[in-house]
């Protein structure tokens, strides 16, 4: 086995930022807004780096699809311990319509090209909440998948994955090569401190175009409209129980 792990990292609007919808309802304001690595992608990178530190795999390659700024996200992954990066250049209109289908085609092509043993992704991105890329990538590669992983252990050419599911936890054993998606409790991602970022500047980031991988980026989806969620109504205070009953009857609740 090549001992190479591919980790997909996505540049998203920072989780702490208050999202604002554009006045024309075509999307969300991204200009001048703080961006960072998707939290679930951080967990994916951490897991890959941990596997390398345990000497279970040999190389961690961080991949990101997007415009020039995606390179910052790759740099963060390199600062966390990835060995090298691959920036798949997607900009302009193509980037606006870039979704799980296109990214999974890219990841599948790269996984074959790099002869990856594992592809680790975050379970979903906090901007689109699709939760599809990992699953689609596995399907395109015809590889087994361990999604919502809260525990991963390598055992020869097999992987034991404990998955977080609605009913509790499910443990599965799948053979490699495989695709894993990271859930919140998989690990505690390390912080990319300034000294690590400086050291990571020496690591290489390769530049690739989707066409080089033979991937067609046409989207089958069209965003019609983006709206804010309904504003939370302010609560109303009442003085007595009679008032409460009256108000409830008023609003048709009882």
């Amino acid at each position, binding site marked *: 086995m090549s001992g190479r792990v591919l980790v997909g990292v996505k540049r998203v609007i920072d*989780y*702490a930022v208050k999202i604002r919808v554009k006045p024309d309802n075509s999307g969300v304001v991204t200009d001048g807004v703080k961006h960072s690595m998707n*939290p*679930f992608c951080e967990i994916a990178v951490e897991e890959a780096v941990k596997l390398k530190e345990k000497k279970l795999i040999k190389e961690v390659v961080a991949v990101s699809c997007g415009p020039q700024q995606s390179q910052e996200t790759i740099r963060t992954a390199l600062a966390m311990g990835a060995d090298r990066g691959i920036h798949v250049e997607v900009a302009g209109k193509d980037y606006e319509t870039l979704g799980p289908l296109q990214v999974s085609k890219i990841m599948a092509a790269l996984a074959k090209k790099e002869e990856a043993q594992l592809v680790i992704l975050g379970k979903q991105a*906090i901007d689109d909440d699709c939760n599809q890329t990992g699953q689609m990538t596995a399907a395109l590669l015809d590889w087994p998948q361990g999604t919502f992983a809260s525990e991963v252990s390598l055992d020869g050419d097999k992987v034991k994955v404990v998955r977080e599911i609605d009913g509790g936890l499910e443990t599965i054993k799948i053979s490699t090569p495989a695709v894993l998606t990271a859930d*919140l409790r998989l690990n*505690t*991602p390390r*912080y990319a*401190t*300034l*000294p690590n*970022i400086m050291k990571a500047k020496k690591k290489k980031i390769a530049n690739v175009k989707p066409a080089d991988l033979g991937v067609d980026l046409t989207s089958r989806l069209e965003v019609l409209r983006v709206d804010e969620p309904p504003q939370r109504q302010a609560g109303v205070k009442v003085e007595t129980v009679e008032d409460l009953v009256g108000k409830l009857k008023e609003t048709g609740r009882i």
Partner: protein
Amino acid sequence: MANPLRGEVIKLYKNLLYLGREYPKGSAYFRDRLKSAFMKNKDVTDPEQIKKLVARGDFVIKELEALYFLRKYRAMKKRYYEPEK
């Protein structure tokens, strides 16, 4: 400042400044407090004392990393997971 430790102190300041960018109350707030904290000790010359202060700074770095992680973890847990009964 004791010469050999000058580099360490400056490195610590830069690391803290970098971490401060994500501070919940804003990076400007953090930077002001960081600067005054360092300025308060600018006349310390005893190497032992300086080493102690640098160690305290390293501790603050660990605390900030823990703060940032917990904040993010709690936000993700609240947004994506059912509250435990």
